[in-house]
């Protein structure tokens, strides 16, 4: 992939300037109105860095991920991935990025092996390449060999998420966008995913942007932690600095101090439909 979209050695992995996104929502009481999902978000992530973004449901985390993976067009500002503009050079960006989201998202009747084979073709991998790499990668993520031919719908959520990780690993992304990858997983699967993230950085030199609800996960994996609240990035710095800035002993306290709300609280001003739309 990188032969087609080379990564400039001095380029930042992510550069976002005043990134803005709004969605139109229809409401019985208020009619059509624009709801800000992101408001002038700016951030920089260096190559090889792992940055975590914390935020409640509807805070705009997934919108950031979708903008960087070219699935949304910004309403204002600009963003680059390794120097490639996400709007004007979207195909270059897509060659360098992959994503693991909270939903595993596979063809449910197809097996893990079939899902991976066809997904790899989209990244230019030939059958001879995938014939070797897919069994290797499935073994690496701890997927049992005797279940590789079963339909995805027969697999547990944890198993499906392992296949999602394998799909991301298969395409050797230089930037990996993780959108709540451990939500809903049992503790063991969660640890396995976290180990995988560490390995991606060490072995594959991947840059990681991790959007999560899990404060411990953010603190243990990321060099810097950002707090995104109602579409605004309130802070982005090492967890220790964040705690010091707000005089907090824990990341949860720092989050509370920054946003004025507890981490588990939902947005009072957004109804359930809006939160779902903005998630």
């Amino acid at each position, binding site marked *: *992939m990188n*032969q*087609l*979209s080379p990564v*400039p050695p*001095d*380029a*930042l992995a992510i*550069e976002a*300037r005043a990134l803005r996104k709004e*969605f*139109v929502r229809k409401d019985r009481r208020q009619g059509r109105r624009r709801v800000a999902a992101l408001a002038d978000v700016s951030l920089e992530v260096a190559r090889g860095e792992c940055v975590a973004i914390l935020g409640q449901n509807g805070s705009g985390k997934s919108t950031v991920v*979708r903008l960087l*993976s*070219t*699935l*949304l*067009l910004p309403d204002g500002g*600009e963003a*680059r991935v*390794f*120097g*490639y*503009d996400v709007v004007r*050079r979207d*195909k*270059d960006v*897509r*060659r360098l*990025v*992959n*994503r693991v*989201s909270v*939903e595993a*998202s*596979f*063809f*449910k*009747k*197809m097996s893990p092996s*079939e899902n991976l*084979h*066809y*997904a*790899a*073709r*989209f*990244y*230019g*991998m*030939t059958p001879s390449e995938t014939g070797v790499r897919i069994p290797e990668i499935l073994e690496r993520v701890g997927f049992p060999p005797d279940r590789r031919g079963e*339909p995805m719908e027969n697999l547990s959520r944890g198993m499906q998420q392992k296949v999602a990780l394998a*799909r991301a690993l298969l395409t050797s992304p230089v930037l990996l966008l993780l959108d709540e990858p451990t939500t809903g997983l049992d503790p063991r699967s969660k640890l396995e995913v976290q180990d995988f993230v560490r390995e991606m950085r060490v072995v594959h030199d991947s840059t990681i942007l991790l959007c999560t609800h899990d404060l411990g996960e953010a603190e243990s994996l990321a060099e810097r932690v950002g707090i995104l609240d109602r579409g605004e990035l309130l802070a982005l710095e090492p967890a220790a600095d964040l705690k010091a800035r707000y005089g907090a002993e824990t990341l949860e306290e720092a989050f509370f101090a920054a946003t004025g709300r507890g981490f588990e609280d939902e947005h009072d001003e957004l109804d359930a439909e809006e939160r779902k*739309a903005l998630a």
Partner: protein
Amino acid sequence: MRAVTEKPRRSQAQAWHLRSLKHELIGLAGVVERNVYLTRRYIYWDLAFFVWTVANTLTIVFIAKGIEAGGGQIDVDRATTTLLIGAVVWAYLGIIFEFLTETVAWERWEGTIEYTFMAPLSRAMHLGGSGVFAVLYGLVRAILLFVVVALFFGLAFDDANFAAALVILVVASVSFFGIGMMTAVLPLISPEKGAQLGFVAQGMLLVVSGVYYPVDVLPDWMQWLSKISPATYALDGIRAAILDGAPLTSLWHDIWPLLVIGVACIPLGLGIFHRGEVYAKRHGKLKRSG
């Protein structure tokens, strides 16, 4: 901000384009491969649907015998074959439309749409893969349907030019593919109603293209619409080839409009789909639903 704005240098451009083309073609093959996997997994659905199509076609084709039984003076075998060709071409067209329209609708239902749209594959190849599979799958289904129903009625085709009929069907497929791309955009911009609107477009073609009756019987304004429908020329050419054994050379009056419509429809379809994709990305419509 430091931006990458330059394409590779001219000296490297040729190798870059070749590599890029290779990736695109592998991606196109990937869409075909995926549809083969899915067809294999849903094989009983396919068999059930095929039986339904055979039953539906028999219902239509029996109309010829019904007219004779009611005292009508017609060449029953010719009328039966005319209706059979209409039903088979219609079934084929339906498959092309279904596969292309469901390129988006199906992925939305499965929840894979965002992964497909963030893959580094051009939309032409993505839709092209669906189109190639649809044509291959549709041809197999159409030929099987034709053979089964023809055997049922004991039809003989001593003078038929099946090769010419097949050429016409393949040439027409280009136009069907282009129109299919236009309807494929509907589920993209309207997740809830898009697929249904695709059926509306398909139904409009059915009415104006002379699938089961000559277009001469239509009102003038509908006859004008029949002139821009590729199905009109496909049916006319295929009927001439099978019923009268017309050689390909004498079917040029059907082939050239199909080529013109095809050449116009492909870029138009891609352009419309591109605009729909931009709209969907602007308004957040790609997100999984269902």
